[in-house]
């Protein structure tokens, strides 16, 4: 294991985060806080409780997930796309490191950022809305697992993209809609029965439901199912990355 190399990539990526702290940390924290203020405090006071939880508190796990997903994807995809775009990838490819080590460096850094961001968002939310965490260990597990899984997903996008538009395409056209429709703002039990079925095809439902369960001990789908679905998505991403490394797809001519 080339530990020096993993550390070099990891530190390089983290340094990039601190250099762009306004864009990479502050911006998502502020925009999520705006949701807390608008939907939580302003409108939320007029909304009914969901599953015995105040609406303002109810939306916190979902909104945190929303940021976690989008930021994991954008961090990881940008992290690997930039060296491909600028040509500096030559150095990583010519270094005495394996693909696993490349992955640990880039995805490890992207996931770390997301976990830091998620934590800051949850702490900020506390300033607006009182909430409890029923299962803290599970909460951390879901947070870390989601950050890792979607950083892997972002890594795939960063390899697949051959232009900046494509980098934005999946996050804006696929992930954000799925997250909004995945129960960030409502329990899927509030939907008409037909939509309740359809919505189960949305993988984000399971993430949000599981994460919310770790807070309020109430969920749309069982925690076991949520956890399993997250692992399935993780395995899927790993399989695709395995294939990319094996074939050199858009990575190595």
């Amino acid at each position, binding site marked *: 294991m080339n530990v020096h190399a993993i550390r070099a990539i990891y*530190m390089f990526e983290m340094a990039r985060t601190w250099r762009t702290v306004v864009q990479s940390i502050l911006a998502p924290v502020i925009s999520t806080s705006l949701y807390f203020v608008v939907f939580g405090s302003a409108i939320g006071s007029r909304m009914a409780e969901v599953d015995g939880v105040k609406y303002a508190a109810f939306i916190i796990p979902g909104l945190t997930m929303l940021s976690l997903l989008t930021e994991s994807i954008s961090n990881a995809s940008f992290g690997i796309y930039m060296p491909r775009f600028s040509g500096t990838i030559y150095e990583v490819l010519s270094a005495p490191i394996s693909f696993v080590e490349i992955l640990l460096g880039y995805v490890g850094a992207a996931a770390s950022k997301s976990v830091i961001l998620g934590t800051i968002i949850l702490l900020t939310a506390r300033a607006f809305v009182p909430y409890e965490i029923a299962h803290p260990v599970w909460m951390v597990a879901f947070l870390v697992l989601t950050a890792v899984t979607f950083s892997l997903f972002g890594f795939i996008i960063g390899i697949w993209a051959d232009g900046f538009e494509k980098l934005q395409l999946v996050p804006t056209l696929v992930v954000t809609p799925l997250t909004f429709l995945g129960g960030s703002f409502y329990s899927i039990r509030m939907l008409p029965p037909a939509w309740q079925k359809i919505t189960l095809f949305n993988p984000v439902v399971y993430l949000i439901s599981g994460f919310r369960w770790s807070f309020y001990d109430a969920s749309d789908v069982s925690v076991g199912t949520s956890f399993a679905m997250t692992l399935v998505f993780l395995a899927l991403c790993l399989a695709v990355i395995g294939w990319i490394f094996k074939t050199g797809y858009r990575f190595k001519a």
Partner: protein
Amino acid sequence: MPSATEPIISVKDLTKTYASGFHALKKVDLEIRRGEIFALLGPNGAGKTTLISIICGIVNPTRGTVRADGHDIVTDFRLARAKIGLVPQELSTDMFETVWSTVSFSRGLFGKPKNNAHVEKVLRELSLWEKKDSKILTLSGGMKRRVLIAKALSHEPQILFLDEPTAGVDVELRRDMWAMVRSLRATGVTIILTTHYIEEAEQMADRIGVINKGEIILVEEKAALMEKLGKKQLILKLQRPLEKIPEALAQFALELSKDGLQLVSTFHAEREQSKIASVLRALAELGIEFKDLQTRESSLEEIFVDLVRARA
């Protein structure tokens, strides 16, 4: 442990077909000797960068094997790559990093523990020390190329690849670069450089390999190659037309143009270095005046044509 006489790089039957179907390398065999400066000479698109990229692990070979210091570059890539430093043809650098951090990054990437003294030494030798805290973005093109060299040297490689190190580089930096290459060689580093310029290969290399259309046409000691290849022409535009070439000039094998206003002398750059002076002296003695004088060297293209014809 590989012995000292074993080639430091050995390329066997190396073939590269890109996904587009293009055959960039065709059954290349090549051996680089330990401690030499080897120049790989060839026109645009010959396959120089492809060959280097495969040896360095950036491009996958289609067929064939490469060993670096005895280690197979695929099955034993960690040991092979740790020995190699690469300065790429393109100026691909980070932008917002400082010189210091990008060079330290390279060292870590190649698995070496932090060593500020070594990084400082490299930066000083490349006259980058004053710029160590500057963002790369703010450096000139020549400086950026030095940064790429510093990155390649950060992990103390045994083998250094320089892919067109002097393209777009001014005279001073070129001279610095040549001096650096020589001093590296003195410490035992093997250097492989690519170039379009015969003069550069001539100045620098111990041996020269010529590649064209994905095939190595020849590999020779520099002296032997210059003997074969280096042709010069002396072109004289005369004040007054000549009817025919005077007897006294017969020994120089000159050619006279139809209008009698131009004399051309073709000779070996290496073997007949004093020929220009002799021709001019003879002209002066005969009272033949000229209004213009040009010399030109055979271009790489002409040399390739010669070589290919010679092989056919």
